[in-house]
């Protein structure tokens, strides 16, 4: 029984590593960048809204922190007739 446990037990450290990587990627987004992301989201929305009408629910701003660089992804859904309305 002990021998079986010794030989067939899978390593646990890779699971720890993977779980941490997923968790921390998520937590870094929500805690550290939250103020900045909210600010960016609001200001970007203001600029866009000057030219086209957009729904604030359709704006998605994400920031990801890396060791060397961080990336900011902005995803805005613009309705088909938005340009006409603003004009």
């Amino acid at each position, binding site marked *: 029984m002990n021998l079986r446990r010794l030989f067939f037990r899978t390593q646990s*450290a890779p699971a*720890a*590593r993977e779980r*941490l990587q997923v968790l921390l990627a998520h*937590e870094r987004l929500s805690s*550290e960048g939250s103020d900045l992301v909210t600010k960016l989201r609001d200001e970007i929305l203001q600029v866009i809204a000057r030219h086209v009408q957009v729904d604030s629910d359709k704006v998605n701003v994400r920031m990801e922190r890396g*060791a060397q660089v961080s990336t900011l992804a902005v995803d805005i859904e613009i309705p088909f007739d938005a340009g006409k309305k603003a004009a």
Partner: protein
Amino acid sequence: MGKVIVVTSGKGGVGKTTSSAALGAALAQNGDKVVVVDFDVGLRNLDLIMGAERRVVYDLVNVIQGEAKLTQALIRDKRIESLYLLPASQTRDKDNLTAEGVEKVVGALKTHFDWVICDSPAGIERGATLAMRHADIAIVVTNPEVSSVRDSDRIIGLLDSKTAKAEAGERIEKHLLLTRYDPARAERGDMLKVDDVLEILSIPLLGIIPESMDVLRASNIGSPVTLADERSAPAIAYFDAVRRLKGESLPVTIPGEKRGFFGKIFGRKAA
């Protein structure tokens, strides 16, 4: 002007106080003038680890509240002349630590000592944020274990946003001190490896302190581990960490990895 170091971790029980005492003693053993400050108001333990628990008269809160002079509260180590301790209060509430008071005390200590080591309490509350507030250098103490790594990540975020240096737009120097490391368990794949932790936290490595009975023995007798047994594996690791802290580029070795013939046969039993 001395350098201010904060020893921090977020999680409790990972070895902040042990490391503060050991690094402070190691720096002082090299001749530098060092003060180690306990910020854990209400749960002080640095005095006990350094063997000065019966010599505490005044503490950090007394100094901040103006009830004692800084020189009255400082306790000089009986073994090393250039090592001092500023204890925390055991009875007072931690709300007695004020931002202005801490700034004044740390500022005064900086002019008298080469190194001011701030031993942070666990958590991310007032005591912890005040301990890191005026630091030039942060030492993040981490165990190779998921909850400790997660909390360290959180603390690194705070160091980059809530310290005086960060607010002034400067970078705070951050180092990782990996403690309670067991190379045999890491090798078997049951403990996060050094590279795993480094990749996740992405801050430079100051040293690896092996899991060791010598640390417990040192605390039992109230002596920093670098003083209790200079030749023990954790003491050597702390001495090396201090050399790196002072700018020497010394490669980091994993303690206890070089095993002889007998070590290879019997080493695993211990783990």
